[in-house]
């Protein structure tokens, strides 16, 4: 899968930017996918990060910012919150490094876990504080000048349907498409078999499709 980063989306096949035939080689400046960075490489990077090595930290920020942002954007539908929560993940990373209780397992596992926690706390805080942030919330559907109205509408319906999935299904979709994890890694992260992860994803897609078609039929 191609992680678009700051580039324009690829115009191309009907299936969209993410699914297409191109598999470009990652350039040093492009946000690379996790698949391109084996765990050993990440461990070395983590050691340097613990020393607060500026280059290592810079590389880590580049590598993970987009992935975390995208993951959170699947789970949280408010563009300002997505930005804040993404920054929060990096703040916690520094705090963890300073307290010397930085990532003990893998860097990517740590980032995923922290992102998931930050999202969970976000929802918990919203439930607790009665004031709904609905006024400030900027729905994320269709950001960007090139999103036309139809697409915005379609995306906002999709987001609404996404929010109705089970937490597990949302996790799988957010990890697969947001965090860009291959099946094997999603399976390890969620402590499931690859087969169950694929089934979760399949059923999630099926449910979403039915909901969207039901909505269309109704309107």
């Amino acid at each position: 899968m191609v992680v678009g980063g700051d580039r324009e989306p690829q115009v191309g096949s009907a299936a969209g930017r993410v699914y297409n035939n191109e598999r470009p080689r990652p350039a040093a400046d492009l946000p690379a996918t996790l698949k391109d960075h084996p765990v050993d490489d990440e461990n070395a990077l983590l050691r340097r990060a613990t020393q607060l090595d500026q280059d290592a930290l810079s590389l880590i920020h580049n590598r993970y910012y987009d992935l975390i942002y995208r993951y959170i954007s699947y789970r949280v539908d408010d563009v300002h919150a997505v930005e804040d929560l993404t920054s929060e993940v990096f703040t916690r990373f520094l705090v963890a490094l300073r307290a010397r209780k930085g990532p003990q397992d893998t860097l990517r596992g740590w980032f995923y876990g922290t992102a998931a926690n930050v999202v969970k706390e976000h929802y918990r805080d919203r439930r607790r504080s009665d004031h709904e942030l609905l006024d400030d919330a900027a729905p994320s559907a269709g950001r960007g000048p090139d999103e036309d109205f139809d697409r915005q509408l379609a995306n906002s319906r999709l987001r609404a349907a996404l929010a109705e999935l089970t937490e597990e299904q949302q996790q799988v979709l957010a990890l697969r498409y947001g965090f860009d994890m291959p099946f094997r890694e999603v399976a390890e992260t969620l402590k499931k078999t690859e087969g169950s992860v694929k089934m979760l994803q399949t059923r999630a897609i099926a449910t979403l499709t039915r909901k969207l078609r039901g909505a269309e039929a109704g309107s």
Partner: protein
Amino acid sequence: MNDKLEQQLLESLELLDQGLTLEQVLARNPEDAAELRPFLETAAQVSRLALQPPIAAKQASRRAFLNDAAAMREAQQKPSPLGWLRRGLLPLAGLAAIVLLFAVGLVTASTTAMPGDALYQTKRAGEAVRLALVRDPERRAAFLNEQQQERLREVEALLRAGREAQVTFDGLVERDGTAEWMVSGIAVAIGPETNIEGMPHRGDLVRVDGVTRDGAVAADRISLIAAALPTPTPDVAPTLEALVPVPATTEAPASTVPPTATLRPSVTPDDTPTLAAPADPTAEPTRAVPPTVEANPVPNPTPTDDNGGQNGNDDDNQNNNNGDDNGNDQDNGDGGGQDNNSNDNSDDNSGNDNNDDSGDNNGNGGNDGENNGNDNAGEDGNNNDQNNGNDHGGDNGSDNSNNSGHGSEGGD
């Protein structure tokens, strides 16, 4: 959806993942293509749904992140003859970070955060950065006092809202009954599990660690920070200069002074007494400040030394640090292995870092009897930490219990 179709969908999604286009995948299942199409289109739409981070947000985040890291690095370096240079750089790094934090809207968003909120750590980090910018000792004292007030306000807000959260705050003992104390206007419930250290009495400055519950803070620990003296020094306008550090100078009588003689940091923000360490240069530094920010004692009205500029931070007074750094902002001094807190005087740091950051005290070291929760190096118990993305501490019975699925699951 029947099983056969479901299986085909599963396989089709795998193919899409491998890079085939939608049309190619459908071409492999011509009979079912019509049925499969809407599902695959949904999949494509989902794959495109992720927001692309706006470049400005990403760059701002990166700058703030790297600046904060640079500030942390500065703080952790050994003292050098160029201490003055570092002291000059630190505020700049902090300033840049603050400007960017404001730009990203993060600081303002987090200023109302309370313990337990997602952005609470950010708030504390912001306070630490702001403090690092201030060099003038009087202003620092005012800042520290304001932060102390903020901790009190947070506790009150939590109590009003009926929220339970782990808190730590400093205040003056106004009442010390058997079951309940009053500390700076906050009810503190004493129970069988409460550790009271240092024999605090009315009028003394104490640190309370506990959980907000049922209108009071159920205290895990109350420790004496500074005992009150009978009379405040006349030349200084209301300050807590009268307070002397705990293990300190022998002539400090235990206080029988009614709270009004010394200064109580009342809850109203405008009544801001400054906290100051005693004038006696040999006295041990007081830890009269809330955690995270400064482990080190509050500045003197006449700052004696700053350790020759060694540790970049701190406006410290007195001693401290044998050149190691502590206290600078977020790091709290830690005693060589002992931890910090109240009786950390005399030694202090042999260079370890106790970061207390956001209210969690994490000390390292040997004894950590006092700090709850620290977490260091996987040794102990940690945190009561609300945040924590992760907690990976090898041993730590408590938390980590939920370390179930993910890389890190904070004790929550």
